[in-house]
């Protein structure tokens, strides 16, 4: 699904990941942990081509992201759902229009019932007509998750998707992601929330990646 081959990423403070190679297979479930500023968001951005690595290659669905045209990159992003930490929306459109955007902006049909079902699942049915600036932080995260999964992506990348949610809602959203994973979607979630990781691991075979000392580790060992 996603393969890093000898990837490093330079930034103002130095070099991240130190030539890491890793594969995230179709249907896999990974958590990405590490202290704030460790590079979790950078890793996610490398996965969907918002950043390009300073060294090495990132392959998504066997295609080198650096070799893709902008149109091909857009086509690839149609198959990857992304939940950003800052949850950007088109603020002048309603929540339901924003949630439907991955379908409507790519020429695919938008079944109204799907949008309504998804909004109900994330607890935003009553906010369907609301504008994003009127939502709380937690509501924005839920709307962003709904937008990320509406197109049934092959992969879901989520950056702290439950950061502003209470435990009940966090469990509910995690259950949605587990369900998606059971249907074959690869999931990669960047989070600090160990309770959430434990909840997921109790239901599904999830691996934990950790960024420590600028290196990506799995099960405590550098990759």
């Amino acid at each position: 699904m996603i393969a890093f081959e000898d990837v490093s990423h330079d930034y103002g403070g130095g070099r991240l990941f130190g030539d890491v190679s890793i594969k995230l297979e179709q249907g896999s479930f990974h958590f990405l942990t590490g202290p704030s500023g460790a590079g979790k968001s950078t890793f996610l951005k490398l996965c969907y081509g918002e950043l390009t690595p300073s060294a090495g290659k990132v392959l998504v669905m066997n295609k080198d992201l650096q070799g893709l045209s902008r149109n091909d990159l857009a086509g690839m992003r149609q198959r990857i759902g992304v939940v950003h930490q800052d949850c950007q929306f088109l603020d002048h459109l309603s929540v339901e229009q924003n949630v439907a955007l991955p379908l409507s902006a790519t020429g695919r049909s938008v079944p109204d019932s799907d949008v309504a079902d998804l909004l109900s699942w994330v607890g935003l049915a009553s906010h369907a007509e609301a504008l994003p600036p009127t939502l709380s932080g937690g509501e924005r995260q839920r709307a962003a998750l709904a937008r990320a999964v509406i197109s049934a992506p092959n992969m879901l990348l989520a950056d702290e998707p439950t950061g502003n949610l209470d435990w009940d809602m966090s469990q509910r959203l995690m259950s949605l992601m587990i369900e998606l994973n059971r249907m074959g979607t690869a999931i990669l979630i960047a989070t600090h929330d160990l309770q959430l990781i434990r909840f997921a691991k109790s239901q599904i075979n999830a691996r934990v990646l950790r960024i420590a000392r600028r290196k990506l580790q799995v099960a405590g060992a550098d990759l």
Partner: protein
Amino acid sequence: MSAGASISRLVVPRRGQSVWLIVLSAGAMAFLAVFALALAVSAAQLAQTWSAALSQTATVRLSAPPEEIDEQTAIVLEVLRTTPGIASAEQIAPEEQAELLEAWLGPDLPLDALPLPRLIEVTETPEGPDRQGLRLRLSAEAPGAVFDDHTRWRRPLAEAAGRLRAVALVSLVLIGGVTSAIIALAASAALASNGQVIRVLRLVGARDRFIARAFVRQISLRAGLGALVGTALALGALAAIPQAGGDVHLLSGFGFSGAGWALPALIPPLAMILAWLASMTTAFQVLRGVT
């Protein structure tokens, strides 16, 4: 509203200074374009009118000693009557000739005392006479007769009208160029001020073509709207220009007539096409620079 209904019409917010810049500039340029078009049409009509008024007419000017003038006039009229291509020839009466000169010399001058030439007004058939041959016959039979077919008047008038028309057409091209430049700048500003829209659309996998179209559609419609208002105002202003009569000839005939009034209707759709081309080119250029 359905969540997916015509989303390309909605993804770009309908606000911002660039919106008004596009409407106002398109309106102003359409206003100017109507006047430039009116000038081009009027100049063409003027050239045609002047040419038509002076073509197929000529004048024979006859100077001769008083004792020979009547005889030579008769000879000239006979020559003209028998020349193919001449429809009619008629001597201008002395009273009429005096009236024509009165405007230049005043009413008090004793014209009878002046050695005025005889004037014969000639009307040609559409084919016209062999002018060179006619001149030779006249010089042989009436040496004091000069055939004037108005060429020396007609040519500079036609040239002046032609240049006026060229100036008007160049103005139209300049107006189109300036409009394109303004729309391109406005499109660039609109894209720059909607960075979040572009980022979100990129995130959900929208292609450049979709993003560009969303902006271009809005810009083109606004340019069309501005041009429509500008054209309507210009037509109103043109209709309000008094069509001078009597001795004032400068503005008479400026504007459109008959089916010519339909020509300005082309300006709003042309403005939309121009805006579409300018904004589409700009949008793709800007999007190429945004990751």
